[in-house]
């Protein structure tokens, strides 16, 4: 999974720069990609589980579904930013810490952009995952089966 997520972020979304290899090595070696991947999958699943199976509101409309979708995306965005920031700046990898501490290396300036890039990517992915999850979950929901349509 770690490789899959790494390939996705680095190759598919192009969040990679060989000049700052230590960052991406750290994310790969210390499970950062895995955590980021689980965020855009796990959080939407949790959100839609709540929506379809625990939310006992019989008057749900499309607007409710849309708000829920956006809420899950925002949550993923914030959570991803926090996780990515922690994974980079508090990684426990001394080599990366040294690089970040070296003002002339440019690591810090580059690294500071990364959490938001991951956050935006994950938020977008969560929309897609959430939409697909809702199509599956609505089949088994007894109260919100009619949402999104």
């Amino acid at each position, binding site marked *: 999974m770690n490789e899959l997520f790494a390939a996705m972020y680095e190759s598919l979304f192009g969040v990679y720069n060989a000049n700052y290899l230590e960052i991406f090595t750290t994310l790969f070696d210390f499970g950062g990609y895995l955590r980021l991947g689980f965020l855009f999958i796990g959080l939407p699943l949790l959100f839609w589980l709540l929506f379809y199976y625990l939310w006992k509101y*019989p*008057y749900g*409309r499309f607007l409710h579904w849309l708000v829920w979708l956006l809420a899950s995306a925002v949550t993923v965005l914030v959570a991803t930013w926090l996780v990515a920031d922690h994974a980079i700046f508090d990684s426990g990898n001394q080599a990366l810490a040294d690089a970040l501490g070296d003002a002339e290396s440019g690591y810090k300036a580059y690294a500071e952009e990364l959490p938001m890039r991951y956050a935006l990517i994950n938020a977008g992915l969560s929309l897609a995952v959430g939409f697909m999850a809702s*199509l599956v979950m609505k089949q088994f929901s*007894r*109260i*919100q*089966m*009619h949402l999104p*349509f």
Partner: protein
Amino acid sequence: MAQKLYIFGIGGTGSRVIKALTMLFAAGCRLENGFDTVVPVIIDPDTGNGDLSRTKDILRLYQQVRNQVDHPDDFFGQEVKTIHELADHSAGINPDFFQFRLNGVDGNSFRKYIGFEELGDNPEAGEDDRNFIRLLWSEANLDADISVGFKGNPHMGSVVLNQFTSSDDFIRFGQTFSPGDAIFIINSIFGGTGAAGFPLLLKNLRGNSEIPHRVHVKDAPIGGITYLPYFALNRQDEINSESFEEKAKIALDYYNRTIIGQNRINALYLIGNRGNTNVIPYAVGGKEQKNNAHFLELAGALAVLDFCKNRDLHGVSGGKAVNGTRVKEYGIENETETITFGDLNLDDVKKLSGPLTKYRLFTGYLEKGLPRALGVSRWTRSNIRLVPLSNNSVLDRSYFSSVEYNLQVKAFNALFDEWIREMGENKPSFIPFREMTADTALNLVRNSAPKGNLSFRALDVWNCRLIARDDLRAPVGMKHSTLIRLFGLSTEKVLTKKELIIR
């Protein structure tokens, strides 16, 4: 074995008790001991009587709704048929078939009906006969229009009603009667039609040799409820309510000698309200006679349930009750002018609380809760995509705007609510429910204080949960099946959770 209960409702009181019983059946009450079909028969010469018309309407609507429910086992569970339907094996609904037709009463005076002017073979003998007749009936009696009933004169009614045993309807009744069937008679003792009709009918059931299947009819269990005065009139005229009590005493004495004393009936229920303060507008009959529903009519309906429940005690041999006539009086636990469930005997509460509360919640929901859910809640949506077709509901906007829904279910429910409201406005009032609003719907039972969310939301949640059940799917032609069966289940779930049903 399938058994039928024939219920003869005589006069206005008979109609009103049959109405109350029909409401209980709609709410889910059932007869015990295998009585799967009820055959109401209204005997009333006053065809235009408001009470009669309303009861026939209610019976018609009941049948129309029930006929479109697949295997109803809660709301509308009890089958109700006319003698015509049984005799002709037809499914056509005609409310007039609930009424026994009396010949020669339309627009006739009593004088004309008995052939007063044609009496005697010659003028002299004829005058003697007429004078004899004058000893029995006053000029006012003779001139009375009998098409509006007998205006509190049973001695007129006993003559006119004696003919119904030779009618086609009575023959059909005999033809459809089977071993195991039973009969229940409802009458009031203080009026004209009911007081006269009850002994006559009983006499014919126990001894008329012309009736088909007379052996079965003669030895059938027969119960009856006799109403003692429970209302007064706001003015005294041809009908004088001040004489009700005296008439009741005289008639009771007669019943005691001829019916109870001779064990002609298995169970006789007596019900009334002595010292009642219930004054209703004066009406001799016709469409003006449309009395508000009264709690005692509901109690009378309970007598029918009780009679069937105790079927095993009602053996008959040679036209006589082998265990003698059981006489029962009705009473409530607390003497009060505003009766609620808590004032009733526990057995009665157990019978009434669940069905009435469930049906009241059902009618209240359709009136005040449905607008919020319609087209929004999953159980009202027929256009849900990417799910199996069976998950779409038939109870969508087109159902709730259909002619059948509006002219049958909605019309019946309006009459149910009217019935409940009228009982609450009468004296003593039966007022088990609070006014219902969308936000406090589950706070509907008086003297109870459920906690939590009291809106219709829980009902909508249960409707959503239940709507896709296989057994709620409506077969073709059973248009009301899903609605009636769904709410039978969902109201039960919601009210049980809130502990609003006394069991």
